[in-house]
């Protein structure tokens, strides 16, 4: 081993990279050495970007998505349809739906999902805050857009039951066959849900 491997600053840098998702010790080492090869100004800009993002981004007090504005861009946009709230697990889901440009309503980010086996319960999510948003009486439809896995389904079923007394229209996003894929490769659960979520076609 050369002295370089024992340099505490390098050890520290590798440890920091190692905290990133999907980064193992080898990649952490490569990234650390890559940073050293960059010009000083670029490294400074990189570090600055990290700190700035962390300092600026907060949770929107209305919908709880990550944002640099309070309230966030969607919540403050007067052209959005305030009668519909789309409930998602994470801010990244908001980005995904926004990319479609098809949805004009508001969002609510739960910041997680219910997972009985991992001990994640309703009170760990932003459910109370969702109920508070319904008090104004403006909302008419809740779209449950949690993931189609066990945790997401449990969360959707729980919310559907919880929201029932409010008398709103409660919908669940359809799951089915991915666009461009093949029926032959779809599993039974996906196919069965795709059939359940079928709709009429060819009507003028």
């Amino acid at each position, binding site marked *: 081993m050369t002295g370089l491997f024992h340099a505490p600053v390098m050890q520290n840098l590798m440890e920091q990279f190692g905290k990133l*998702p*999907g980064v193992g010790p080898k990649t952490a080492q490569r990234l650390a050495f890559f940073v050293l090869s960059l010009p000083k100004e670029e490294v400074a800009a990189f570090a600055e970007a990290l700190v700035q993002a962390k300092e600026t981004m907060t949770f929107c007090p209305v919908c709880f998505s990550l944002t640099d504005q309070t309230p966030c861009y969607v919540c403050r946009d007067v052209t959005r349809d305030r009668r519909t709230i789309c409930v998602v697990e994470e801010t990244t889901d908001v980005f995904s739906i926004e990319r479609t440009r098809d949805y004009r309503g508001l969002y609510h980010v739960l910041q997680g999902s*219910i*997972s*009985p*086996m*991992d*001990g*994640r*319960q*309703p*009170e760990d999510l932003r459910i109370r805050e969702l109920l508070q948003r319904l008090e104004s009486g403006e909302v008419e439809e809740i779209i449950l857009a949690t993931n189609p*896995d*066990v945790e997401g*389904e*449990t969360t959707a*079923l*729980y919310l*559907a*039951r*919880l929201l029932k007394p409010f008398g709103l229209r409660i919908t669940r996003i359809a799951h089915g066959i*991915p666009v461009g*894929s093949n029926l032959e*490769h*779809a*599993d*039974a*659960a*996906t196919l*069965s849900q795709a059939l359940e979520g079928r709709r009429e076609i060819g009507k003028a």
Partner: protein
Amino acid sequence: MVQYKTEALVLHSRKYKEADGLLTLLTRHRGKVSAVARGIYKPGSKLRGGVQPFSLNAMLLNAGRSTLHSLNQSDCLEMFLPLRSDLDAMAAASYWAELLESFAMEEQEDTGMFQLALAGFYGLAACPEPLMIHALEIRLMNRMGYAPSFRVCAGCGKPIEPSPQYSFSADAGGLVCSHCRCEGQPVIRLGPAVISLWQGLENISLDKVNRIRPQPEVLGRLGKVSQAWILYQLGRPLKSWQVLKKMEV
């Protein structure tokens, strides 16, 4: 590396690294197995359809030197769709899966346990009721050799005299007589109806469980006894049980 084929129930799945899944399986031939399913969170993964929690699959696995096996192939045999479309059923299935995960032995063939696990998921899909859950709890405890003592005192071994009220102590191992019941020892009071319900659930075939119609307070008492009993055997509370209680709307 040894490759083997087995039927497996997925008890638990969590994300591992970026796109892999870490599965807890109950297999027909090797007991409880931990396995990594690579790339299941990538779009178009062929494995994903065969690794959903509470599903029965035909799996091809690799056993290496570590206790973590890896999944090569999986075909779903039974999805238990009713468990996925109802909150109570989903909650009950989560609880059953956690019970199995907590009690099943690692890498030890136990076909009886596998059959009970499978029958349990079928039972809950047909009838996700507290009575079914208790029937499964009781059978699982009996299989593990943890049947509580109802006929003789768990303290002194003398026969329990017929009485309208008994005292159950999980620490002692079942019913305790008035001599063995020491001051301050936590006991659950229960009547004979609770014991007959417990014994009835030990033997009744699971597809007939919904024919039993116990008094609500008898059922509630039985639930208290079985919770105390499981908590004592396991030494820790089950996570899903606590979440289930919170989800009652």
